[in-house]
Every structure is written in structure tokens, then in C-alpha cells.
């Protein structure tokens, strides 16, 4: 069933480095070499200084849940089969306006649709984990355990 989920085209020239880093377990964000502006989603030009030079800067992989939904049918068949499931937007710790869409998971191995839905809460601290689906490593998020 996993292969029926939608996956990113990891050959997309603007975003391929993001997916390559994800395969190495790193969450990276495009950063302007000339003015330091971070930008996401990836694009060729820095909107602040028009530079075409960028590097991929690692983030800590920590953030907070900015919002979330619980999706119910009707959905594409692979998703409908596992609904209801959560989708989150996470604001990164380094820059709360750099946000990622993902899912809250219980552990690095547990599928996203098994997450107990009462765990979802706006503002909850989370950290990134990468889950392999086919040849892609998708960034998903676990709640930060207390006492960390």
C-alpha cells in the first residue's frame, strides 16, 4: 500500500538537494550566500537581494506545531484506507516563518496514520524524523519528550 502514497519528484532541480539531505537524515533549508536570507519552498533567486547563489543550511530539526488537520474521506485510495490521519504544519525553531508540512508520528518507525489524535496540539514542541517510503525520506515529526 505504501507505494500508492504520493511521493515528491526527487529529481526536481530546485528541491533535489533537500531530498538528498533528507536521505542523510538532515533537515536543510535554502539560504542566500550573499545576504543570509532563508527561503522555503526552494527557488532559484533570493527574494531579498536577487542573488542566485545559495547553500543548503542544516536546521536543528526542532520546532513547534503551528497548526494541524485531521483528514477524513473522501481521499485518494491509499490515504482513504488509513484515514482519519493527521497532517501538521511545523514552525521551525530557528525561524518560525520557515514552516514544513508533515505528519506527527509516534516513533521513527510508526506509520503516520497510527498517531493517537489526542496528541495533536498547537504549540507542542516537536523534532524531525525521516521515514523512508520507496526511495524517498520524508520529514515527519515526533513530540519532544518531557525532561529533554
Amino acid at each position, binding site marked *: 500500500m505504501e507505494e500508492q502514497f504520493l511521493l515528491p519528484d526527487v529529481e526536481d532541480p530546485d528541491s533535489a538537494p533537500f531530498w538528498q539531505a533528507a536521505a542523510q537524515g538532515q533537515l536543510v533549508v535554502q539560504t542566500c550566500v550573499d545576504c543570509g536570507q532563508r527561503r522555503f519552498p526552494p527557488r532559484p533567486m533570493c527574494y531579498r537581494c536577487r542573488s542566485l547563489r545559495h547553500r543548503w543550511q542544516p536546521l536543528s530539526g526542532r520546532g513547534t506545531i503551528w497548526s494541524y488537520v485531521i483528514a477524513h474521506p473522501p481521499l485518494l485510495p491509499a490515504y482513504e484506507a488509513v484515514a482519519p490521519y493527521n*497532517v501538521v504544519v511545523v514552525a521551525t525553531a530557528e525561524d518560525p516563518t520557515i514552516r514544513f508540512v508533515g505528519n506527527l508520528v509516534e516513533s521513527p518507525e510508526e506509520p503516520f496514520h497510527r498517531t493517537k489524535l489526542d496528541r495533536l496540539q498547537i504549540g507542542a514542541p516537536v523534532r524531525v524524523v525521516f521515514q523512508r517510503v520507496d526511495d524517498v525520506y520524508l520529514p515527519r515529526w515526533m513530540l519532544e519528550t518531557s525532561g529533554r
Partner: protein
Amino acid sequence: MEIKDRTAIVGIGQTAFGKGLPDTELSLACQAIAAALDDAGIAPREVDGLVMFSMENGREVEVARNLGLGPITYFGEVGYGGGAGCATVGHAAMAVATGQCRVAVGWRARKRAAKASRPWANVAARVSGSVQWTRPFGLLRPVDEIAMLTRRYMYEYGATRDHLANVALACRKHANRNPFATFFDRPLTREQYMASRWISEPLCLYDNCLETDGALAVVVTSAERARDGKQPPVYIHSFAQSIPPQCQPMTNYFCEDPLRGPAWECAQLLWAKSDFKAADVRVAQIYDAFTPLILLSLEGYGFCARGEAGPFTEAGALEWPDGRLPINTSGGGLSEAYVHGFNLILEGVRQMRGTSTCQVPGAPCCLVTSGEGVPTSALLLRRA
């Protein structure tokens, strides 16, 4: 050069609304345009301007060849789906006002009820571009994308499901007076709303618009010609569009302030070009693919302060006849028909002609908006 009041909508036309209509989208488009030209009393050969959605399936040349239009001297297309409706009329007005054409038609034809025609249901297993950041995680449908903003909005401002229900119930009440509305004979209660199934929490079934087959069209010409027309002219008083900085359509989560959508910038130009201000508006047709878009738009267009749209909807404020601001007086996308918001434009025209089934007496102008959350557009129509 200003376009204020220099052009008018002089004809409106629509097909029946339904599910699984046998006609093609091209045929529906031609039927709606023919009806609009009849309404205007203008011959097809006089039409020399065409403005359509870039998502339209029928092409300008086919429309012109079927209806016997032209010669066409101005044609253009507007992108971004639900954001385009008011802009097709606005571009028509600009083209007429600048002399690039004399009679322009804008329209939308859509067969949406067929599941296979829904854009989100037709995706390859590998996705690229902006959706690669959202769809693999199961954020698949427009409702999921807007539900994400809605949850955040509710969290920040304390808006409730009752506020969303206020929107759905107002639209349904208005549809219940419009014999052409899909839900003409289907009342909706708050209890039904609260008991309905989830689609994408926090949004339930009744927060979602209809899926409709149908087409609608409007005819725009100069104010001078409109004064001698078959119908009372409805002046295009003000028009605006906007793509705000760092806008990403629908999944606008990647900018500084995702809850400040395209409506805000659109409103600035709309009011700057207008003799009216938001406080003068007594009836509005606000794009309603989803109920929360009404809350965001009420704030964006200045009917209340930011975060106050929930309470604004209370005490029947959005309902005809006694509400402070009756909205979507034909039922809107939620309860009349969802044809990418084009039916809102025709209802705006009916309000200014005095022929709505929820007529607001004496309203000097009517605001019509297109999709919030995408590059958008808006019109302020003025009564003759």
C-alpha cells in the same frame, strides 16, 4: 485614467445547475453567453471582447465560432481558479474603457460534479512543484489546505464552529428562497451542521461548497451604451486584483503572516478606487468555497478588525433581511452552486437591478469577491 463607472454589466446568463449534465463545458459556456446576450439585447456579432478563466476547457476561438462572435479585438485569460471570476469582469471593463473592444463577455463553465474532473483527484504518483511539500503527507484537497489555516485562525482568535455554522446557515437560508439554487428545498439547521461528518477537521461537510455542473456569463459594455440598454445598467465602480508578497496559492503557510491573505491587498486598491467604503456596503457576495474564507474575507475587506470576524457573524448579521451584512443572497457556492464563484457576480448584478430573491432594498453598491487564499480579485458594483 480611471475605469470607475465607465462601464457596466448589461447582461447576465446562466445554464441550469446540476450534477452530470450531458453537455460539454464548451456547450455550457456557449449557452450561458447566448443567454447573457439575450438578456442584454445585444447581437452576438457585436461582441468583440472575450475574457475567460485560464482553467476554462473551451477556447476563445471555439466560443467565438459557436456563437458567431466577432471579429474579436480583445481577449485574455485570468489564472488561479476561484480567484479569477471578478477579474474576468474587471479585465473586460478595462478593455472596454480603453477602447480595445466595445462589448466584452466574461464567463465560467465547469463540470465539477464528476469525480474525475476534480483537480486533486488526478495526480501522478510523483508530484513536483509546490505540492511536493504538502501532498505526500496527505494534505491532498483544497479543504485540507484551508482547514490548516482555519485551525490556526480558531487558535489565534477564539473563533468557533458556531461562527462557521453562522456562515453555512446564512447561505442556506438564502438558497431556500432561490428556486435556481441546488439546495432551494433543503433547509439546514445548526443541529444538522454540528452532527455532520468531518471532511478535514476542523471543517465538516457543511463547511464545504457544492460540486456543480453549469455555466454563467456576463456582458460588459460602456456606460454610455448601457444607459439605453434593455436592462438597468449595473456599473463597474471599482475593481482590484492581488498577489501579495510571498503568496503561495491555497497552501499559504510559508510567508510571515499566513492569515493575512490576498483579500487584504485586493481590498486596499478596491477601496482606494471607490467612492464607497466598507461601512457603506449593505450587501456582499463573498467567495465561499469553504465557510472560513468568509471570516478571512470579512477582515480582509475591512468589515471588522482582524480576529473579529467570528463575533461579527453572530446574531444573524449575515442573514437577509435584517442582518448588518447579508452575504451570498442567492445561496453562494455553499448552497446555490459552485461554479468557481461566478454565480456570486450574477447575484451581485441582480442585487443592483433589484431582482434578487433576497433583495436588500436601497443598497447603493454590492461587493463581490473571488477566491481568498489564491491570487484574487474583487468588484464593487454600483446601482444605476
